[in-house]
């Protein structure tokens, strides 16, 4: 028997022996009991509409596609994803949630937006208890974002994002610098890159007023330095001495020439493109951008891109914004029970793990997971180069923004002020923050937060 024949026999034997294992695994994810789903397809034929965003983003597309057929096979429930572009998602969310006769049953929402629709969401506390959901498997920032810092669970963590620093290892090696762990070190590294004469911007920040994304890293600076948006009495506190210092540091990247001049108009995606297209050595953004950075068509970017925890404040903390898309069920849904059945499956650790491990289709490849157990999973980390482990460390210090309905009115005031400060190199930071604080106070006063 020659070697080739022996080998083919061995392979056939191995394949034969692995069949029962495969069948067992396939049976596992096809068994309703695995996910705590009800036996006997009591909701067979029910159709659910899921209001969700951005089919071109793998983090959403993968959740929509991977395993959906199996869920339908197990339960008879079919789900349609109402794909809305991010730019118009907020208004669509509000219009559908407040519409008593909406077709939508399930909604995914940005944490800050959810505060305006809490009254229209079905409380999930009983569901979490009855379905055996391990609430402690979510980090504190995600728990806060799902409850609006109350006792009511309005949504369950679905897609969640810590801030990571993406950088070019080859640039760092050429310049001879280490990965910055604080914003102050980031400035030093940036200066070193400038001094080296390399034809690359040290960092691509995003200060544009477009969709308010210029606040994401500002929060990290503010909280890291020890300031906050509000004090305990809901008075604006971002304009105190620490807040001014944090804002100064935040806009210093463009003022000192480390970030492109045009970054005062960039949104997060445009800043990310600067790194993907090889024009910037660093980018601080949500971790889901990893797949875009590593898929860059430029080999010098794809082969040398690396990631680390977003920097913290020197002598302060590494607190950053843990950005969450919870998923909830609309109280007016005609298919409440079937919707909860879907959540059991969608948010189950097996489903979450499966989504994040399945890299077969690059268009659906995502690193996004929200459960601490999945973030600590060795196989998951091995598949993504340890990304989830770093994310987990960031999330340990992460927090969420003020979850009050008025905050959607406060956001543009802050975003426009940060934009104004970044545009004008001679802007009076203290003066502009003071004006913003007055405007914010006006909003809060009108909402009845203060006596008199």
């Amino acid at each position, binding site marked *: 028997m020659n070697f080739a024949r022996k080998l083919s026999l061995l392979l056939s034997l191995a394949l034969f022996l692995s069949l029962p294992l495969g069948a067992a695994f396939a049976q596992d994810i096809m068994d309703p009991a695995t996910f705590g789903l009800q036996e006997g397809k009591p909701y067979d034929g029910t159709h659910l509409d899921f209001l969700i965003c951005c089919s071109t983003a793998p983090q959403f597309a993968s959740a929509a596609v991977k395993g959906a057929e199996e869920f339908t096979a197990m339960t008879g429930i079919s789900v349609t994803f109402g794909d809305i572009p991010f730019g118009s998602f907020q208004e669509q969310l509000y219009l559908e949630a407040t519409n008593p006769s909406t077709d939508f049953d399930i909604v995914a929402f940005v944490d800050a937006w959810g505060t305006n629709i809490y009254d229209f969401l079905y409380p999930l506390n009983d569901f979490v208890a009855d379905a055996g959901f391990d609430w402690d498997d979510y980090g504190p920032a995600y728990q806060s974002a799902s409850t609006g810092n109350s006792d009511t669970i309005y949504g369950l963590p679905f897609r969640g994002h810590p801030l990571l620093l993406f950088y070019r290892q080859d640039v760092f090696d050429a310049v001879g610098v280490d990965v910055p762990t604080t914003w102050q070190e980031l400035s030093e590294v940036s200066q070193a890159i400038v001094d080296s004469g390399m034809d690359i911007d040290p960092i691509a920040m995003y200060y544009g007023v477009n969709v308010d994304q210029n606040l994401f890293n500002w929060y990290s600076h503010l909280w890291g330095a020890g300031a906050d948006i509000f004090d305990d009495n809901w008075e604006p506190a971002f304009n105190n001495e620490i807040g001014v210092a944090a804002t100064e540091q935040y806009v210093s990247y463009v003022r000192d020439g480390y970030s492109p001049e045009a970054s005062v*108009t960039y949104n997060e995606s445009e800043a990310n493109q600067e790194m993907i297209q090889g024009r910037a050595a660093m980018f601080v953004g949500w971790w889901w951008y990893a797949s875009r950075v590593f898929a860059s068509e430029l080999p010098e970017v794809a082969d040398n891109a690396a990631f680390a925890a977003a920097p913290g404040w020197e002598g302060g903390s590494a607190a950053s914004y843990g950005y969450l898309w919870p998923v909830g069920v609309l109280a007016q849904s005609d298919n409440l029970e079937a919707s909860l059945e879907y959540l059991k499956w969608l948010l189950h650790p097996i489903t979450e793990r499966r989504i994040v491990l399945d890299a077969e289709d690059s268009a659906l490849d995502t690193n996004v997971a929200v459960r601490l157990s999945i973030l600590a999973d060795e196989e998951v980390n091995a598949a993504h180069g340890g990304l989830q482990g770093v994310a987990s460390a960031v999330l340990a210090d992460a927090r969420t923004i003020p979850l009050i309905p008025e905050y959607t009115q406060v956001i543009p005031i802050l975003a426009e002020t940060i934009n104004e400060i970044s545009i004008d190199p001679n802007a009076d930071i203290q003066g502009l923050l003071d004006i913003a604080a007055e405007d914010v106070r006006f909003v809060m006063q009108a909402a009845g937060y203060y006596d008199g």
Partner: protein
Amino acid sequence: MRKKRWVPWVLVAPALVVVFATTIYPLLAAFYYSFHKYDLRKAPQFAIQFASQAGDPLISIDWSLLSLRNYTLAFSDSRFINSLNVTFWFTIISVGLSVVIGLFIAVIVQKPGRLQTLTKILLIFPFAVSPALKGYSWRYMLNDQYGIYDLLAVELLIKPVNLIIELLNHLPLIDITPINETVVWLADRFWALFMLAMSETWGWAPLIALMFVGALGSIDAQIFEAARIDGANRLQIFFRVTLPLLRPVILIVTMLKAIFSLKMFDQVVTMTGGGPVRATQTINYYIHQVGFVRNLDIGYASALAYILVVILTVFSALYVAKVLNRE
């Protein structure tokens, strides 16, 4: 034969139903909401209540729920005042550029010829592009790293000007600062608004050119011939004959374009996001923010919308009067 009077009504009924449902009803409803405190998140309390039990009057009105608060608030709202200001300047710039460039194009392509015919056909395409897409395209084309418009502006305008400045600086007593070659168009308040208006002009000027081509074609050629015989040169013919004869059409086109400019929304969302700071927040954009994104205050948003309706009505009335007068 006896005329059946109801037949015309039956024939127009479907159209009337559609117009009522999509235009009249929303207009009336928004007008009604504008006098109420109507928060999208809360169950609204409206002044007009319909009878729920037999014996009640068919309709009762609770006057205490009606208020002019939303209208008075509007004129003390600095953000709304800003949006009025932005919309005013946007309208001036976009209407001015669209009409002037449209007229310029029309004069060039009005003469018969194959190339002109092809150009006339191609002219309609920019108008066919969706406004939202226009905004995205312009945002990318103005990018200082890879934007084609930025490249053209720097290479064809700023660099030649800087070359002249450099030469002039060799002369004694002259010291002119060169223009910054890395203009971030959308970071500057004026340029952002100007470029927003340019994106609108890009779509409208060709359409306006086609309107002018039609108007130019309707002018009797003998008038131009007579002017030439009287010794007028091309410029004199244009300014003393063509322009005066086009004046009614120019007025109509200006008013029509002004109506559309006052409603500016799509490109603000996709091109500037209202920035830098608040420099491109038009009235429509601000209304949308108040009603559906930030405050969810439908009552206040309705009042703001009605202020815009009043402005638009003035322009529309002038437009209709002019058109009817012309006919």
